[in-house]
């Protein structure tokens, strides 16, 4: 029954390819049909091709990061498997050795120091604001919430240079972590407030009312009742903000430039790509050192991340 025709021919409607062996209660999906029309063998082939195309570039650089400087420039990484004994950790040793000029260690530390407060601070502020917008009646509440919501569309580029001026010339925070902490917080607030507010609105109002009847104030309600319930929303936003700040280039580049005392690893890697574009032994190791944390976090918390994505969690 199976036909070897590509998807584009509607005639290949043969849904009844031999029923999948493990599907007992054959739960069909719309696309399952499209896929079986494609003929599952062809479908798998195309899927595998896409998957290979998508992974090969990363694998190439990963393999390269374990080859010696001489080998990297002598021939392609695909030759490396012929001589597995030549793999080395030397690039990573150099990239992590404290004190050496090639070291990424202090930039890595800077990234951590930048990221943690830049994730916590917007969560603090946004959950407070979201609580007020959701449950505390005060004058101008709706207009203000719409304004905060609308600010999501403002590209951060439009604020950068005047903000830089404020930090350096008015507040004396130039070239310090404070300028990035505060900036990341500001840029995250519209999205964070929006996400957490939406989540809060869905909690039953009776919960709040019951607490108020018992004499609890807003502060008590916020801490004792809401905060524990908010965990999923906070986790979804937190992982977003974490990836966003960890991977950021623009904000750090503008507010703290390449200064080794404060610059994050992305800024350093980007700078190296410009000045030492052929030093692949360093670039490859540096790139993977910068990637390892977000990849681990992402894989561990994928669930929350996807949930956040589906809740409309994308910011600019």
């Amino acid at each position, binding site marked *: 029954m199976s036909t070897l025709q590509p998807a584009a021919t509607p005639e290949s409607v043969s849904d009844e390819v031999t029923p999948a062996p493990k599907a007992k209660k054959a739960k069909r*999906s719309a696309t399952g049909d499209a896929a079986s029309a494609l003929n599952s063998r062809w479908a798998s082939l195309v899927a595998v091709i896409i998957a290979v195309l998508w992974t090969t570039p990363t694998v190439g650089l990963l393999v390269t990061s374990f080859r010696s400087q001489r080998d990297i420039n002598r021939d392609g990484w695909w030759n490396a498997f012929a001589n597995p004994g030549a793999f080395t950790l030397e690039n990573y040793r150099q990239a992590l050795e404290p004190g050496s000029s090639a070291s990424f260690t202090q930039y890595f530390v800077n990234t951590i*120091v930048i990221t943690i407060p830049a994730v916590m601070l917007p969560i603090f502020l946004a959950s407070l604001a979201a609580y007020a917008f959701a449950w505390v009646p005060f004058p101008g509440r709706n207009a203000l919430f719409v304004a905060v919501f609308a600010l999501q569309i*403002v590209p951060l580029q439009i604020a950068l*240079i005047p903000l830089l001026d404020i930090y350096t010339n008015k507040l004396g925070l130039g070239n310090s972590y404070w300028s990035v902490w505060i900036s990341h917080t500001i840029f995250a607030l519209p999205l964070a407030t929006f996400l957490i507010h939406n989540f809060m609105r869905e909690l039953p109002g009776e919960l709040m009312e019951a607490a108020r009847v018992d004499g609890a104030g807003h502060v008590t309600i916020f801490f004792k009742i809401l905060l524990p319930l908010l965990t999923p929303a906070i986790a979804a936003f937190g992982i977003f903000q974490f990836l966003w700040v960890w991977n950021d280039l623009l904000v750090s580049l503008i507010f703290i430039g390449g200064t080794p005392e404060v610059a994050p690893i992305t800024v350093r890697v980007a700078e190296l790509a410009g000045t030492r574009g052929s030093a692949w032994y360093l670039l490859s190791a540096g790139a993977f050192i910068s990637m390892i944390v977000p990849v681990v976090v992402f894989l561990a918390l994928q669930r929350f991340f996807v949930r956040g994505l589906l809740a409309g969690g994308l910011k600019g």
Partner: protein
Amino acid sequence: MVASLLSAAPSAIPEPLLRAESTAGKFVLMFFAIAFFAAIFGLVLFLASLFKGRSGEKVQGALFAGPAILLLAVGLMYPAILTILQSLRGKSGEGSFSFDNYSAMFSQPELITVLRNTALWVILVPFLATAIGLLYAILIDRARGEAFAKALIFLPMAISMVGASIIWKFVYQYKQTERPQIGLLNQILKMFGFETRQFLLDAPVNTLMLILVMVWIQAGFAMTILSAAIKAIPDDIIEAAHLDGVYGFRMFRYITLPSIRAALVVVLTTIGIGTLKVFDIVRTMTAGQFDTSVVANEFYNQSFRYDAPGLGAAMAVLLFVLVIPIVTYNIVQMRKEA
């Protein structure tokens, strides 16, 4: 003017609270900052708890929402207004009011190239990424190892655009044809008997090569959203279609596609907005040279490298103006669906 901004001005705040040399010092600074912010947080809550009753609610609401609103007003709205004003005051951003910067955008050949490139990005990236994401989502739907297959495509979303740029720069690496190749793409060209190419130097191919990197990153996002939308199609609709003898490609065309229309719009517009603001890829791979610059990158170059903050500001405003119709379309579409 901007160059002087980068060197830190003397500050009233003691140095140890601003910068630290040692790793330990940095972490101390970080914990200090967290404690400092927590203290402010505590203070707000304490003040709020002083006000009781229904009339106190007004004060409480203001106290709760105040910090966020204040930060947004001072840190986003006020700077945005300054930028708009600056964009109207000539190249330096300090001259008399005029539309010079905006007319320059549409008359200077190198800036026209920037606009052309941006248009190319915004058209190609959303459609290619969405098409690939959708195809992949369909192909692996309810297949064995679906979660793993998804993670492979999705991982580029987790890494930085800088990292992605390094990965692809290596793929595009150039060596003369007769020498052994280290870049994968040129090795493939050579295998098929072509001359190797400087992928990042030759316009206009280089812009397409940069676009490819963004497609690589965004396809995973498209796949995730669309896959969720596909799985949300109710079983009874599918059953009903089957009873009517609709299968295969017609199923896709008449059932799947209309059912995921809203998700498709969200994916296309979201990727479109992200693409408009693309900076890291261009900056890391070519720094906007060789005719590859886009608006977000030109904003940076004009402001910080060519000492034309007024023109840079105009670029930022342009970015804002370009985002508005996409967001509007997105909202209008969502309203229609609702």
